[in-house]
């Protein structure tokens, strides 16, 4: 009997011999009720061969039975043997029973400085419906400190081990109660509930999230909690508490986080090597008896370590229990979230669990992801075993969500384009709509007018430039040619201008702006004439070979006019622009 932690492990090695006549295919054994209701795991194996080499032939099927005529307050189990046991034959059976919550703290309430004492009760004699020829009990304790223990004959106490027996030739149902009252300061960490969510992403990640609701299930702490005492002498004044937990995560676990509902908890450490990742976490405060806390840890695992193909199906092979050291879980819920679109789901778990199904909606899901829910109560570290989830999944479904996003944005942009190009006016005949249309036309034509005027002004500049060239080179012909070109252009432009002006005059919307435009055109024309006259004057002068000063004098008045007109034209253009 191993009492070294909060979990009681009873390993029984039975050498069974068939003393009767008929072949026996089953072996019965029993636990008292108070133990049986805390039974977490029961495994029976046979050990073949004489040597110590344990070639255990796998676990044997165990069933709970209710045979009649047996004493009450016992729970019965039977082991089916691999082959019938003939007369006189014998077989070695290893029965491993794991119990949680079997150690009772006594006293139940202790103060901060007290050590934690627990009581364990069992029988020194093996409880069996059969005769027992020879039997002994060894009790392993965590520390060589014992408050008291039942002293029977043949009781030995050495180191941290108590031995009862060996006893010989015990009749069936012999019972000799023993109680061990000993010091156990190991963490009594019990997760009232642990929800593990394993989410598979075929993009290459298995995300595991574990929500713990933790309780220190040892002796209740009463009285003051003094941080001073705890900090000064943590070994003495906080002996019954624990402040850290170690989780053994699989290798290559990444993106590990540790938090609770109010944020990240900064007291944690990771050590890793190629075979495992050790995560050492401290709850926000040291856990004394009866104190509770809750937290979440999460990590990512590489997909290819856990997902395999077989016969067109995929299966996930991942561990079931919790990775924490020596923690009892009262209620474990494992949820396996498969990718959206998985089908043909089946689960195989090496022990009995309650199965269920639900649907989870995650990022951009349309129909939701199938979730396999497995529930089990009373889980001990021995349940840290692999289980399988088989399902079918088409890899093309992977592309669904990216495509959805792409098409979503595409539609958005297309909608924007359509909105900008479409005319969404409800009533095409309403006055304001028509007015708006007209106003648009007016604006367009005014813009054209302005363009033409600008081109006129550009030609003015050209003429001016030609005049400057003339003053530099004295080439009268080139100057005249420039003038001719300008004349032609002006004519064309004024032709272009006419229909626009006519349109503006006819349009009611342009009433406000029309006088300005007309004024602009008039001014521009005047400017044209002035520049012409200036040009001809200058050219004349050059032909007559007048002196430069003479030209300047003659042009000066015209130049003044031109400047004034130019100013006015500019002003008008600006005014119209603003409208």
């Amino acid at each position, binding site marked *: 009997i191993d009492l070294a932690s909060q979990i009681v492990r009873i390993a029984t090695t039975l050498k069974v011999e068939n003393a009767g006549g008929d072949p026996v295919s089953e072996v019965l054994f029993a636990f008292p009720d108070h133990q049986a209701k805390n039974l977490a795991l029961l495994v029976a194996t046979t050990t073949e061969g004489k040597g110590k080499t344990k070639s255990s032939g796998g676990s044997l099927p165990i069933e709970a039975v209710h045979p009649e005529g047996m004493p009450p307050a016992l729970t019965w189990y039977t082991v089916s043997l691999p082959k019938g046991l003939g007369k006189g034959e014998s077989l070695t059976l290893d029965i491993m029973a794991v119990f949680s919550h079997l150690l009772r703290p006594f006293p139940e309430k202790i103060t901060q400085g007290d050590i934690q004492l627990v009581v364990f009760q069992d029988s020194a004699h093996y409880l069996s419906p059969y005769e027992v020829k020879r039997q002994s009990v060894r009790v392993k304790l965590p520390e060589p400190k014992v408050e008291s223990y039942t002293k029977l004959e043949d009781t030995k106490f050495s180191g941290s081990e108590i031995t009862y027996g060996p006893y010989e030739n015990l009749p069936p149902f012999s019972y000799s109660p023993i109680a061990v009252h000993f010091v156990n300061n190991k963490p009594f960490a019990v997760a009232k509930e642990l929800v593990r969510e394993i989410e598979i992403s075929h993009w290459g990640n298995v995300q595991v999230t574990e929500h713990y609701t933790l309780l220190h299930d040892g002796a209740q702490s009463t009285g003051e909690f003094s941080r001073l005492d705890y900090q000064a002498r943590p070994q003495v004044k906080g002996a019954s508490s624990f402040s850290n937990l170690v989780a053994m995560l699989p290798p290559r676990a990444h993106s590990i986080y540790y938090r609770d509902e109010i*944020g990240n908890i900064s007291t944690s450490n990771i050590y890793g090597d190629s075979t495992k990742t050790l995560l050492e976490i401290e709850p*926000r405060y040291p856990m004394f008896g009866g104190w509770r806390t*809750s937290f979440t840890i999460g990590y990512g695992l590489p997909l290819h370590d856990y997902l395999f193909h077989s016969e067109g199906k995929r299966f996930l092979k991942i561990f079931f229990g919790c990775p924490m050291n020596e923690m009892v879980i009262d209620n474990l819920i494992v949820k396996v979230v498969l990718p959206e679109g998985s089908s043909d789901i089946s689960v195989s778990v090496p022990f009995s669990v309650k199965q269920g199904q639900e649907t989870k*909606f*995650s990022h951009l899901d349309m129909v939701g992801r199938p979730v396999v829910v497995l529930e089990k109560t009373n889980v001990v570290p021995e349940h840290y075993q692999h289980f399988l989830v088989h399902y079918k999944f088409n890899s093309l479904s992977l592309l669904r969500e990216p495509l959805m996003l792409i098409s979503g944005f595409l539609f958005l942009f297309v909608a924007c384009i359509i909105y900008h190009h479409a005319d969404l006016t409800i009533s095409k005949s309403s006055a304001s709509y028509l007015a708006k249309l007209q106003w648009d036309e007016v604006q367009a034509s005014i813009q054209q007018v302005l*363009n033409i005027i600008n081109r006129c002004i550009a030609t003015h*500049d050209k003429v001016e430039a030609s005049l400057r060239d003339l003053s530099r080179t004295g080439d009268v012909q080139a100057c005249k040619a420039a003038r001719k070109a300008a004349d032609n252009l002006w004519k064309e432009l004024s032709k272009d201008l006419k229909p626009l002006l006519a349109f503006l005059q006819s349009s009611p919307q342009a009433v406000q702006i029309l006088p300005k435009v007309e004024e602009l055109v008039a001014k521009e024309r005047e400017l044209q004439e002035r520049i012409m006259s200036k040009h001809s004057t200058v050219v004349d002068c050059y032909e007559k070979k007048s002196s430069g000063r003479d030209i300047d004098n003659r042009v000066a008045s015209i130049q003044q006019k031109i400047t004034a007109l130019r100013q006015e034209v500019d002003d008008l253009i*600006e005014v119209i*622009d603003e409208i």
Partner: protein
Amino acid sequence: MAASETAKDSALRHAFGNVLSFFILVLIGVLAFSIRLFSVIKYESVIHEFDPYFNYRVTQFLTKNGIYDFWNWFDDRTWYPLGRVIGGTVYPGLTLTAGTLWWILNSLNIPLSVETVCVFTAPIFSSIAAWATYLLTKEVKGTGAGLTAAALLAMVPSYISRSVAGSYDNEAVAIFALIFTFYLYIKTLNTGSLFYATLNSIAYFYMVCSWGGYTFIINLIPMHVLLCIVTGRYSSRLYIAYAPLVVLGTLLASLVPVVGFNAVLTSEHFASFLVFIIIHVVALAYHIKGMLSPSMFKVAVTLVVSVGLVICCAVVAVLVALVASSPTKGWSGRSLSLLDPTYASKYIPIIASVSEHQPPTWPSYFMDINVLAFLVPAGIIACFLPLSDASSFVVLYIVTSVYFSGVMVRLMLVLAPAACIMSGIALSEAFAVFTRSIKFQLPSLSGDSQVDAGNSDSGSAATTQTEAVKADKIEESAKERPSRKNKKKEKETVEKPSVKSRIEKRLLVLPLESSVIALLLLVLLGAFYVVHCVWAAAEAYSAPSIVLTSHSHDGLHVFDDFREAYAWLSHNTEVDDKVASWWDYGYQTTAMANRTVIVDNNTWNNTHIATVGTAMSSPEKAAWEIFDSLDVKYVLVVFGGLVGYPSDDINKFLWMVRIGGGVFPHIKEPDYLRDGQYRIDSQATPTMLNCLMYKLSYYRFVETDGKAFDRVRQTEIGKKHFKLTHFEEVFTTHHWMVRIYKLKPPKNRIRGKTKKSKS
């Protein structure tokens, strides 16, 4: 030919400018968002400080129970035994915004937690606020100024301090609402469109939902309207901008439960109604003036004025009588302390006890708006050249907000957008002047081959100059066009001004060297600003204040004591236990520990807070009786003496005494002071050394180092060895920052039993 090409060219340039400014805006949004993520990267994605925890809790309630339950929510977890009607006393804008965001995300199957949405609401809204600033400044001074102002606002430290990721407070969305309301007002003023006027009322409604600072809007806009009327700028656009806002806005505002009838009853809103009357009178006067001949108008004026004066006097008298009949003259305490900065410290110690209600110091201006403080005057000058309706509004905005920020540190937040707008205008104008000067002078140094026909239209502007420089001018304008394309955003302003202003500005050409140097200096100034903002965001304003860090020789040290205590409370006490602490920690206790508190940060009941203050400053026995009468099970105190955390309860203790003494006169402040000095060493008064707060803070403190040296006060404490008779220590966090005590059951009734007493 050439002309059509230029038309095409300008259209293309226009489109190019639009796309460019669009991308600049997107980048500004990204900048505003990402500069606020320092807190998440350096610490974690967690709600900050005190008030955000309340908002977070309300949002959780909203997302869980729906909108109707939210309006009717009576919270019995706080202000025990009074409770608080949350739905009717909270500004719902922020909560509803985050709740809607969460709802949209979840209905798109993006499973973000409420906390994540709350944490990132503020950065998202500061991006939007930057865009709103762009719109507002664009209405005032054009695109270039808009972009500059938006970029400045995206990283102004004052705003960052209230909107880092996790700072889930009303101000986070309210600043956006404020700027956007102003934008719509200016837009309406510029366009005279009733559509924008309606939008404006809705934006105002959102602002009313979000923050009590909406009274700033409803006072500033009437002030501006009045200014416009007085300076003879009345127009129909002004009327359209104002009248619908008052009518619709007031109607909408009174829909918000926390405002309700206050929208028409309190004095904060009177200015708007007064101006509403005035603008109608003025509108009528303008209308009549248009109808009547001048002489008739004169007669009418004298008639109306004499009758109107009488009526006005009567109305004003009635109003004054009504207002005067209420004790605070119809003003809330916070508003009054705005008008009279000494009001709060005289009458309401609770308001005065909050550090963010203190007047700021000069360095805090430099810290919070940095170089903007120097650019603002330049911006004001730029707004007067020329003064339009819009720019006069911005000037008024900055002037009033400077005053308010001088009264209360918190209102620095209102100043920040104004300062950004002003500085944006100033910077953009300065850039425009300098770059133009450079552009005009560069070609004369380098190129002379750039003449082409396509630019002759812009050359037309130059012909008014003398003949001698004419050729050069054409070349300059030729240079002007291509150089614009590769210019930055400032070019937009150059494009806008019409021909005439271009001519004017051409006369303002500065020497090449000085403008280059000035440009460099401006860029340097901007760089300083950016460096400062990033530093402020990273170092000064990102700490969530529930987690503290310190750098020691062996690396980073984390003080997570607050959450340790709250987690302990939430897991290891009964659900219905009442926890008493000073009101600062009320919101956090309800949100993180989910326990009922006596008082919290919503300081609505002065007497209740005074009761807790009295208990804290009474001797143990009296305090026990007060707490027991309030059904309190645990008392939580914050103590920084061991690690040197300065804002602990001992440092806040004088406020407890003051507030307690304000209601219960047997608590006298001088009893706790030795010669007017607040001290806790051996010179302290016996009252001080025997009060509960002292005892709970320093219980068994002497045993830590043997001397009981308080590292915050830098002194040894006065009374070192004492025992608690009515309280017992149940939890102290790792660094002793939070200590939780339990009330012992009364001894004479149940002796020797560990059963707790329930009265």
